[in-house]
């Protein structure tokens, strides 16, 4: 019986149970719950990045800026405009969607490293707007007093555990959507683009439109995560839109496993955990963290998921292959093939 | 002379070659036959240092090159025109050819002669010398790859399916050239699906199957071997 259990499913179930129980486990240490909630929000954003980078193979470095736009939209609307959270949240999602769509129109004309740096510039431009358009954004002063979601009936969102579960819903949705996408035609089209644009065209994939959709969707998800972040923290500053955000998310994604269903989540949790642990090292922590990152990239290049996958007994791998497009074992944008040592 | 003894090689977990023994002499034309996936290209990669064998030994002109880098091996005079061409797609044809002479770059006059030889061999390349190699037609790329491997002025040349994608006229020409090169004293090791033409010009040959040498002999012997006739000569 036991040996018929698929370790993959078992793993997913364990993670799900652990996530559900977090507020109980951390009931005495609320700050850990906050760490996990924050990690979960970043994980949601990482799922967004996963769509454009993990699936479609386009390295977008504007992701942190989209996250910031979502955060600022919720922040400014609920404070300066005194909107309720819920409508501000919807507007944040809509706003990042539009922004993502419009920037995608230009950005996706470029390719490879050009696309990466282009989006980096775009992100920086958004950052400059936030820092310099003081009358709108309060620049460096940031936005204080961002609202929690208003109560729905007896559900009180100021309760950390409630907020956590609220975030968890989106996280689960993001993970599930990734899973569904990977097993769908839409996902296959994206993965096809990642591997070879020409070949993708030849099987009828509308490369331009698919990329545009993927980019827009990734921006939407980043905006959503940003909105949650603003509400959770109550205060946001320009740093929430900075390039550092993007690199953090990228780190989560790579460490978790690019293009996988569980990668963004596991990566975010692991790195959050690592950051927490290393806090005690104070200023030495980057001396440790830097090499850890390098080692992870060298020795677990396919992320934790790739690493765990290698542990899965071969008989389950067969099933894995019938999980189409599951690119747990697929690196992004295949490098020049080479056997040179 | 190249001498391969007991070479085994694999890709990650997949074992492809199992103890291959082959000798190719200077000035001779040795042909390697074998069905698809029998390991011809893998064997060539091991010779040129692109793939490191698990065991066995490769000797070139009496020197052990089993663990040498591809760069060192080319320098010693063993050139490899690989399957899949491996041109530099965004460089011009001429730059590709000139890079072929990377290990001979000191001798400008010789390089010039070599370049002219490649152009004479494939006049279309002279016409297209400014064009990016990646935008050539398939056959033109194959010509560029052969030309590039000749540019290193080798004493032994490994050609992996040189006729692939070439028009019949050009194929004939290429075979004639191979013979010509061979006559100049350069040893040639040739993998070719066009077994008929290959055996016609070859001195000796080996037949690979599933990573093992299953037959070997002079070209004449192989041509008259019934098994070879059935499998490769369509008789």
């Amino acid at each position, binding site marked *: 019986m036991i040996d018929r259990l698929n370790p993959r499913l078992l793993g997913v179930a364990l993670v799900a149970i652990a996530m559900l129980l977090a507020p109980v486990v951390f009931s005495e240490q609320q700050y850990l719950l906050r760490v996990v909630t924050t990690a979960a929000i970043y994980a949601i954003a990482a799922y967004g990045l996963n769509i454009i980078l993990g699936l479609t193979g386009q390295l977008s470095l504007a992701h942190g800026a989209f996250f910031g736009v979502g955060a600022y939209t919720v922040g400014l609307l609920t404070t300066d405009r005194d909107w309720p959270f819920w409508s501000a949240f919807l507007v944040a999602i809509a706003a990042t969607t539009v922004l993502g769509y419009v920037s995608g129109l230009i950005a996706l004309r470029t390719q490879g490293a050009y696309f990466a740096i282009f989006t980096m510039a775009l992100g920086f431009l958004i950052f*400059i707007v936030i820092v310099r358009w003081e009358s709108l954004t309060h620049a460096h002063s940031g936005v204080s007093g961002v609202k929690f979601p208003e109560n729905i009936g007896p559900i009180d969102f100021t309760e950390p555990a409630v907020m956590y579960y609220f975030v968890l819903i989106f996280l689960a949705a993001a993970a599930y959507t990734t899973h569904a996408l990977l097993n769908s035609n839409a996902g296959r089209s994206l993965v096809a683009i990642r591997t070879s644009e020409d070949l993708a065209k030849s099987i009828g994939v509308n490369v331009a439109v698919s990329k545009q959709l993927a980019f827009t969707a990734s921006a939407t998800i980043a905006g959503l995560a940003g909105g949650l972040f603003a509400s959770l923290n109550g205060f946001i500053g320009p740093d929430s839109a900075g390039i550092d955000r993007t690199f953090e998310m990228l780190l989560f994604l790579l460490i978790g496993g690019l293009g996988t269903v569980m990668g963004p989540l596991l990566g975010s949790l692991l790195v959050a955990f690592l950051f927490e642990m290393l806090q005690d090292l104070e200023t030495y922590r980057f001396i440790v963290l830097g090499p850890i990152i390098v080692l992870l990239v060298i020795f677990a290049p396919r992320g934790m998921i790739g690493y765990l996958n290698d542990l899965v007994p071969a008989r389950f791998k067969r099933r894995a292959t019938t999980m189409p497009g599951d690119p747990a074992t697929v*690196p992004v944008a295949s490098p020049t*093939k080479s056997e040179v040592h | 002379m190249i001498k391969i003894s007991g070479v085994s090689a694999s890709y990650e977990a997949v074992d492809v070659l199992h103890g291959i023994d082959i000798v190719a002499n200077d000035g001779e034309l040795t042909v390697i036959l074998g069905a698809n996936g029998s390991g011809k290209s893998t064997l060539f990669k091991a010779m040129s240092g692109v793939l490191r064998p698990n065991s066995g030994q490769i000797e070139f002109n009496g020197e052990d090159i089993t663990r040498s*880098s591809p760069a060192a091996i080319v320098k010693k005079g063993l050139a490899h025109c690989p399957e899949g061409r491996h041109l530099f797609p965004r460089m011009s044809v001429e730059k590709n050819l*000139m890079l072929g002479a990377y290990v001979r770059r000191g001798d400008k006059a010789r390089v010039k002669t070599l370049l002219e030889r490649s152009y004479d061999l494939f006049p279309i390349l002279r016409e297209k010398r400014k064009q990016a190699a990646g935008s050539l037609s398939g056959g033109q790329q194959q010509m560029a790859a052969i030309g590039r491997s000749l540019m290193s002025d080798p004493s032994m040349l490994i050609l992996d399916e040189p006729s692939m994608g070439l028009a019949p006229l050009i194929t004939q020409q290429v075979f004639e050239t191979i013979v010509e090169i061979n006559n100049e004293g350069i040893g040639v090791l040739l993998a070719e699906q066009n077994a008929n033409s290959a055996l016609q010009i070859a001195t000796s040959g080996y037949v690979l199957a599933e990573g093992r040498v299953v037959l070997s002999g002079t070209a004449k012997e192989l041509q008259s071997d019934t098994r070879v006739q059935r499998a490769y000569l369509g008789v």
Partner: protein
Amino acid sequence: MTLFIQQLANGLALGGIYCLAAIGLTLVFGVLGFPNLAHGALYMLGAYLTYFFLTDAGMPYVVAILAAAVVLAFLGVVLERLVFHPLRNSPHTHHMIATVGVMFFLVALVQEIWGTGFLRMQSPVGGQLSVLGAQVSWQRIIIIVTAVVVLLLLTWFLKRSPHGQAIEAIEQDRTGAALVGINPSMVSMVTFAVSLALVAIAAGLVAPINLLSPGMGDSLGLTVFAIIILGGLGSLPGAIVGGFSIAIAEVMASTYISVAAGEAAIFVILIAVLAIKPTGIFGTVAQR
């Protein structure tokens, strides 16, 4: 008018700084296939090393810069061996993250050694020159001149030696490069060494008009990426044109429009150029 000339001179000096920093980056792009995000941190390290050799070891200015260049060149070889060589067959995203790891490490390391504070390196060449009413310090003139000389030397080196083509070849097809006799590892190492030596020289020259701090590389980072992309990746003339035009645009926009416009100028130009020519000014074919 004097203001314009003054700002033009300032723009040129800034352009020199940008160029010196950008060319090293462009070089390594060829072998990494991706911009080296630790470049800013290496620049910072170069400045600190120059400071160390100048102030603590008491070397003359030029010797100190060269010593820093040698140390960084060596570090380049070490980095290539330890970090990038093992990653040679990995996708470029991995390189990028690895460079972020290196960046974290270097910044933290410098902080542990030299502390968090600002350091000032005295300019060994004082004084200034009056050009048509504009004041330009000698240090800035040295920067411009060195930038031009280094660029010319490098262009000459890459044209004359096979090294430039070898870098290109490796970037386009590693196996093909090996088969024509290029040693990819050797070329990578040499490229890293040259690139890092260049960045050390840039830092050593700029340090006297700037301050040393562990974060001094950050500001340069984004701008320099914008420059090499603007010019076209891997293109040396591109880095030069990009460096000077962006510097002048930055200075002029902040002079005649606003400081925010100056900050944004770089990125607005970049976006505008790429929207029209997605491969940069001198870029020919799209990168993978």
